[in-house]
């Protein structure tokens, strides 16, 4: 299985704080890779560099064997931790706008938007302003925007943060369905049961470094949460 995403020696510093310190891992085609770590571990900074929002100070990122450029960005779907949506626009208008950013033609976009709305369960509310949506609906739309252009790699930064169990189940089902179709997923979460259910492999990071890596069953002795706490400590991070 070839690596769709390779990260080697990634480094980012903010003045005195080293946010990411030589991080390295790989995500293969059709694989779901979980990046786990406490708050402030450097997960979001690493993801921001992988999707091209932030520039790395050092290290290498390769997508499908290529250094990042506009073409590799088109292969990556990004689901940020924040609800990156225009609240005054409807779901359909949000999707239409972002389809333009990915160079989709009007007719192609119309068909794909309908498919995505169906996938995220928002077809019946597609023409309502996002400001009127519940937290779960907004989260689903946030994911829908990331899926719109049929990426080969989906980067999801805590996509289930703050949603109810029904929406979380729906989101997890969607991710499982997508990986079944060959999509590679890089997934960060605080919920160990999500990682155990979804991820083929996980990496536990703290202070910007990779502490350990393996399948959930390899690391889950007696369970993933115990391993996580043993490696990252029990001290509060916020």
């Amino acid at each position, binding site marked *: 299985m070839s690596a769709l995403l390779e990260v080697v020696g990634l480094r980012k510093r903010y003045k005195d704080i080293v946010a990411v310190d030589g991080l390295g891992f790989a995500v293969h085609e059709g694989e779901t890779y979980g990046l786990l770590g406490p708050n402030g571990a450097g997960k979001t900074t690493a993801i*921001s560099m992988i*999707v*091209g*929002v*932030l520039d790395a100070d050092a290290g290498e990122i390769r997508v499908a064997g290529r250094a990042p450029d*506009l*073409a590799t*960005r*088109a292969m*990556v779907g*990004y689901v*940020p*931790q*924040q*609800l*990156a*949506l*225009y*609240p*005054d626009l409807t779901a359909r208008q949000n999707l239409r*706008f*972002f389809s*333009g*950013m*990915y*160079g989709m033609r009007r007719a192609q976009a119309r068909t794909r938007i309908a498919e995505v709305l169906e996938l995220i369960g928002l077809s019946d509310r597609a023409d309502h302003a996002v400001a009127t949506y519940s937290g779960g609906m907004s989260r689903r739309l946030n994911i829908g*925007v990331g899926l719109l252009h049929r990426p080969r790699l989906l980067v999801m930064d805590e996509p289930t943060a703050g949603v109810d169990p029904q929406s979380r189940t729906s989101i997890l089902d969607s991710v499982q369905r997508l990986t079944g179709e060959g999509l590679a997923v890089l997934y960060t979460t605080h919920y160990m049961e999500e990682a155990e259910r979804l991820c083929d492999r996980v990496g536990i990071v703290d202070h910007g470094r990779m502490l350990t890596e393996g399948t959930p069953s390899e690391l889950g002795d007696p369970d993933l949460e115990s391993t996580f706490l043993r490696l990252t400590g029990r001290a509060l991070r916020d």
Partner: protein
Amino acid sequence: MRAMLLILAQDLRRRSKDSTLLVFAIVLPLGMAFMFDLVIGGSEGPVAARYGAVGASPFPSSPALPPVVPVASEQEARELVERGRLDAVFVTGPGSIHVIGSVDAPIAVQVAREIAESAALPLPGPPPIEIVEDATAATRELDPATHYAAGSAVFFMFFAVLFGFTGLYAERSSGTLARLLAAPVPRASVAAGKLLSGLLAALAGMAVLVGATSLLMGARWGHPAGVAALCVACVLAAMGLSAFVASFARTAEQAATWQSVMATAFGLLGGSFFPVGSWFVQLTPHHWFLRGLADLHGGASPLPSLAVLLGVAALTLPFAARLVRA
């Protein structure tokens, strides 16, 4: 290019729903221009005194001075002043000159008194001062209506530009800017789309103000091409200066505060509403915008003002790139 146009269209559509921008770009400047023109400037132009003379007029003959109406007698002079037909009448007799003045025109009467006194003290020899009429200097000055219209327009344009940056900060804090930066779109296209919408919104506001103040206040802005060039150059300078200030701020709130302080200080020190007699005035875009309009008005070239405004824009606009980051 397509992505830039989509971002631009999206931004303009969202801005058109923002009533605050409408208030700052059009309603407030128009209101301020009306108020200043009404209270300070008046729309009738310069005060024209009406003088008469019984006997010889003390005025030297000059088209720059007001005409003096010949009056037959002192009695008639008093009647004309009483009825408000004349503001003051010089009564010249053998070895004497006095002024009959209207209580309703104190400035005209004071001027008449000064003229009468100088006429009563003729100096021997040729006149020490020669009056030179400089038509260029007289016309290279904006009339009150145009000055207050232009001053208000440029003052509030800085705040309209500020709203463009506020939109950028909102995109940053909502995460949509990160999503745009992650898309296969050059960062320059994202920046250009965002900045162009600010430019167009500010220019649209200026255009409406030019039209409205011309129609409603009788403001005479000058040749449309020259006015358009000055407006574009001034908006670019305002955007550049706002970006420059914001690039040193740590938070959106800090940037907005600094930009507001800059807009207010430049507006007041740049002579938007009151003349400022200091070298500092030349450091503000407001001064160069108003000076460029005055040059246009007087038939002179606005190129020096345009060059200064575009130079400021060229030096400061690159700082906007620092703001387009997640």
